[in-house]
Every structure is written in C-alpha cells, then in structure tokens.
C-alpha cells in the first residue's frame, strides 16, 4: 500500500504554507517529519486528517495497483496533547470504540487484553479518564488509534511530553505496529527522529523533501539536515 499526495497546496491569506506538495509514503515504514517552528507540520496533518480544507491537490491510497480516495477510517491522528473524553472511564472509552468499530476489528482481543498490551494497570481501568495522568491519557489515545488499525497513523509530537519510561514503551510499540501501515511522526527533536524512523522527510519552504539516509546518525548527517532547514 502507498499513500500518495499529489499537488497539495494550502495558503493562509497570501502566505503559501504548503506549496504543491507531491510525495508518496510506503507502508511498513516510520517517517520522521522534521521542520522548523511554523514550517506547516500541523497544517499538513490537519489537511491530511481533513480537519482543514486544502486549496488544491489530491490525497489517495494505492492498493494492489488500484487507486482510491482517502477516507476517514484510513487515518489515525495522535495529537501532542492527549484528548480523551474525560467523563468516561478507560474501560467505557474502549467499549464505545469497540461498539462503533465492531465490523472493522480484525483482531479478536478483549478489552483487558488491550489494556495489558498498553501496560495500563488493572486499578486504573475503571477510573474516570479525567483522573488519568498525562502519560496514561496519551496511552489511551494511542490505543484507540491502534484498535481501529488505520492504514496511516499521524503522530504530532507525541513523545515530547512523556516521561522516559512511557516514551520508551511508546517507541517500542510504534516499531511493533509499523508492519502494513504508514506511520508519519512529526517532531522537532532530531535525535528522536533518527532513533525511531526509517526515513527522514523535511518540510521546508512549503515542500516535502526526503533526506538521503546514508550515514544516518552521524554528525555530518545532522549537520546536513540543519543546513537544509536553514536554507531560504
């Protein structure tokens, strides 16, 4: 499966934030989306998630050499600040998503199995989500997005505010679920991107540009990225 963006443009007033972007993402890979503050990473995600109308362009899925339009179920979007309905308990939130996804669920796991998978303590499962810690809310958000098994998972700065233990758990989890799907991971932190991602994509001057992976992790590689991001 490929995720294709063709000629995507978005501008605010006269400022072109995304300029005629054409790019193809391949399944089974984690893409690290790097860009400076205000480069348009969140705008790109909002456009892909259809929270924002774009001015022109097309986004589609290519499966078995057939192309089709992107639909809402194709995408899971994990925001940097976890948003969960605080009036539900963790178990109720999962049950609700089980109910509305019944037809699409491929795995036959119970609610508690999912909680175990996410390392959410038995004592916390029946607590209201408003009493969950930041990290636990983040895990719930991630879990809900994984249950639906979307083809594309967009992650907007998801690990930045987590403690080291949860961040490590999440990293392992992402590596574990990348098979058969595309994960696009936006971040400011270059080391995180280099550590986790299979490909590095720069969003700069409104355009997406893949970085040659040769010597990934070396000092020269980092310098190359910074130099690229500084260019006007």
């Amino acid at each position, binding site marked *: 499966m490929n995720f294709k963006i063709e000629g995507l443009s978005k501008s605010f007033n006269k400022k072109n934030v995304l300029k005629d972007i054409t790019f193809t993402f391949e399944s089974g890979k984690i893409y690290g989306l790097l860009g400076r503050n205000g480069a348009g990473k969140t705008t790109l995600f*909002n456009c892909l998630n259809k929270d924002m109308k774009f001015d022109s362009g097309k986004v589609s899925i290519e499966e078995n050499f057939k192309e089709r339009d992107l639909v809402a179920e194709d995408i899971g979007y994990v925001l940097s600040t976890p948003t969960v*309905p605080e009036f539900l308990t963790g178990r109720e939130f999962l049950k*609700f*998503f089980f*109910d*509305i*996804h019944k037809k699409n669920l491929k795995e036959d796991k119970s609610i508690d199995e999912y909680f175990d998978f996410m390392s959410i303590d038995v004592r916390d499962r029946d607590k209201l989500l408003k009493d969950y810690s930041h990290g636990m809310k983040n895990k719930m958000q991630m879990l809900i997005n994984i249950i*639906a098994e979307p083809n594309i998972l967009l992650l907007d700065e998801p690990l930045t505010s987590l403690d080291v233990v949860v961040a490590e758990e999440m990293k392992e989890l992402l590596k574990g679920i990348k098979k058969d799907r595309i994960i696009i991971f936006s971040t400011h932190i270059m080391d995180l991107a280099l550590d986790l991602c299979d490909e590095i994509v720069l969003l700069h001057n409104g355009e997406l540009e893949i970085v040659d992976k040769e010597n990934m992790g070396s000092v020269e590689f980092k310098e190359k990225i910074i130099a690229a991001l500084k260019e006007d």
Partner: protein
Amino acid sequence: MSNTLRISFSLKNTYRVNSILYAIKQIPILKKILPDSLYRMIGFKIAGHILSWMWEVLSAIFGKAIYFGLLVGGTFLMGELNQASAFGEIFMHLFLFGTIIGVMSNTYMLSTHRTKYYAIMLLNVDARKYNIINYVYEILKLSICYVIAFVVLYFTAGIPLWLGLLSVLFTVGIKTAVVGYMFSSFEKGNDVDGTNPFNGFTFPLVILSAIMAGLFPAIGHPFPYVAITGVMAVFTVLGVFGLIKICKFNLYREVSRQTLLKAATIKTDSKKTVVTNTAKAISADTNITSNKKGFEFLNELFIKRHKKILWKPVLIISAIAFAIFAIANIAVLYLPESASEVNGLLLNSLPYFLFIMYAINRGMSYTQALFINCDHSLLTYSAYKKPKNILKLFTIRLREIVKMNLVPAFIIGAGLSALLFVSGGTDTPVNYLLLLFTPMAMSIFFSVHNLTIYYLLQPYNNNTEVKSGTYSIIMALTYAVCYIFMHIELPTLYFGLSIVGFSIIYCLVACLFVYKKAPETFRIRA
C-alpha cells in the same frame, strides 16, 4: 515625563487602532477581502487613529454628560417628592454623594488597562512616571469637563460659581486622598485595588452613601450649602495630604505589578472558569453505568454524569415556573377584579414568552458541555467523524435537548392555559391549545436552533474559544429578535399559530441542512 506621556499615548492609541482593525476583520465577508497587511496600511492606520481620538474625546464628554444628566434627573425626581427644597440644594447633595460613590469604584490611579500591563510589565517603562502622568491626565480631563458643567449649571440653575469650583477641587481632593490612603495601606503590606479602595468596607460604604444620597432629599432635608461646603473643604484639604503621599511614594512598580497581575489572573480565570466548571461538573459516582451500546451508550453516560449541569437546572426552572403559575392562578381566583386584565394580557402578550423561552432554554449550556467534555476530544478520532456517526449522534442529542427543554415549557404552557381558564376563559377555545403548545413549540425551536448552529458552525477551537464570527452574529441576532418580540403585542391566536407553523418548518429545514452539511462542518476549528 513628556517621553513617558508620549509612550503611554502611543501605546493606548496603537492598542485601540489595532482593536478596531481586528474587530473589522472579524466580520465574515470583510474577513476574506481584507489582507493581513491591514495593520500596516497607512490609510487604515490614519482612520483608526481618528476614530481612536474621537473615542478619547467623546467618551470623556459623554461619560460626564451622562453622569450630570443622571444627577439632574435625580434632582427633578427628588424635587417632585419634596417640593420644599430648591433645585441647587438637592443637586449638590446628590453630587456630593455621587462623587463619594464614584471614588469607591474608580480612583484613576491604579487602573489595570492592558496597555498599562504592556508598558510597565513588558516594556519596562518607569512605573512612577507612567502612573503619575496618566493620573494627572485623567484628573485634568475630569476637571475641564466639570468646570464646563458647573458653568452651565451656574447660568441655568443658579448654583453659585464658587461652589461649582469647590466641587471640582473636592472631586480631585477626595480621589487623591483615597489614593494616598491606598498607598499607605500598600506600604503596610496590604494588597490594594483601584476599583475597590476599602476592600470589605467598600460595598457597605457605597450602600450607605446611596441611602444618604436618596433619603435626605426625599424627606425634605438635603444637606444645606454650608454643610456641603464643609464636607468638600475637608476632603480638599485631605487631598493635599494625598498629593504629598503620591509624590513621596516610591513603590509604584510593586503596586502596579500587584494590581496588574491580580487583574490579569481574574481575566484569564473568567475565561477558564467555563471550561474548568464544565470539567468539574462530571459526576464521580461509580454507580453510574449504562447497558446500551455505541452512541446510545456514550449519550446515556454523558447525560447521567452531567446531571448537575443538565437536568438539575431544568428541574429548578420547572419548579420555579410551577410555583409562579400556581401563585398567579390562586391570585386571580382570590382577586377577581384583576381577572379581565390578566385575560387580556394572555390573549395579546404571548410574544413576551418568546424571550422567556429563549432565556430558559438549555441549548447553549448543553452544546457547551458537549463540546468541552466530549466532542473536543472525540472529534480527533476519525471513526467519530464518519458522516453516518455524526448524524446518528445528532439525532440522539436532539432528542435529549428537546426532552430537557420540554419539561419547563409544558409547565409554562399548562400554567398559561389554566390562567386563561380561571381569568374568565375565551370565546375561541383553540386559544387554550395555543397557550399550551406555543411555549412547547418555542422550546423545540430553540433546541433545534442551538444544536443546528452548533453542528453547522462548530464555533470552538482546540482551546474551546469561540472562533466563528458568524456564530457570534447569529447568537446576537437571536437575542435581538427575541428581545424585540418582548415589546410587541399580538393576538395569541395569530401569533401562536404562526409560531407553531414556523417552528415545524424551521425544524424540518434545519435538520435537512444538518444532514447535508454537518459531516463537513462538524470539525474542530484549526
């Protein structure tokens, strides 16, 4: 000093000009036409500056004109109650206490305007110079207006010119004295507030002054000129001490910081309060469960866990409505002479209830709670945004809000019908039905209206701030229309029938719109 004055004016002006331009940019059609560079376009800047200066001058003149107008009106009113006293005496009595009340609500010194925050806290402008120069400016503005007003009063009402001038000195004196008192209090380690100079004592002092202001002239004993002169002279002298304190005081930065930060916290708090209160309203009762599935499950838990902000107010409003109509019905039974008047009102004043039904409608609170505690988070999940699911949930929510609003509407409708019966009935029996059903139709209309515009305009952004100008305009228009109807008398027969008809058509059209458009419009605003 002159540099501080220039900075202060230029900041205030820029703030006003940009606020005017920002407000213009919020108007739906203009928003698209006007570019972002609007803020640096010379033409707009000049127009903004002219408006800003006009505002500065006109607000000073009109503010004082309204104040003196109220005093003159009050004097005439008191004069009618008590024909013995002269205009001048009553006026000066009211002016004396009016000024005392005024100083309790604004001393001019510790204003917490945003531009002052920018100047002192962000731009590090000398706090002493900034406060003093602005204080002197405000006092000068006030003095000029007062001198003009008292010259007019000298020629028209014969108030002695010397008393007028003393009044100006008194006003400046009492404000300055209170500022001196606040500064001393601050030096002793107390928090101060320019709009509440005596903390817990301010409100009782205001009430006492208001009673003194009204009571004496009403019973025919306004303070004589000699007493007024004495009080004014004392405060004028105290003002000199206040002035000395203002000059010697050297904690301007500290006092500004304390007052500005306190005001800033209150402002952000009031914004956050709605969100926090809504979040707090979630019931922690572990016995609340639901056996339903999917969206019905979500809805049932939402309603049950938000009883405090959803059903509790409904029950309170219903109980109050029931009590009012029970008393009204009994009153008409016991006071038969009022019956015909009540009967006439019932047959002509139904439009009044449009405003009442608007005011008691729970739609706004419901959509707000829905957004803050539910949709704000769930709208980030793609399954929730599927058109089919949006519409399923819309239907469930419409049912819930209609249920909530129908309870008080039914009580009001039944109460009105009963009142019509006990006040002598009607020749057109259909009026009973109309009095019963019109409030219910209105309640359904407002339920549909609120939920529809929530789904079509979804006005909130991620921080739960209202981001849609169109939404605000529609809400204001709804209010205006209901308010206008309050003042219109129409025969119940025609008004009732048209409202019921209109509500049915509106509901059908609105739902049709939601079904067509909501899957696109029901989104978090980026």
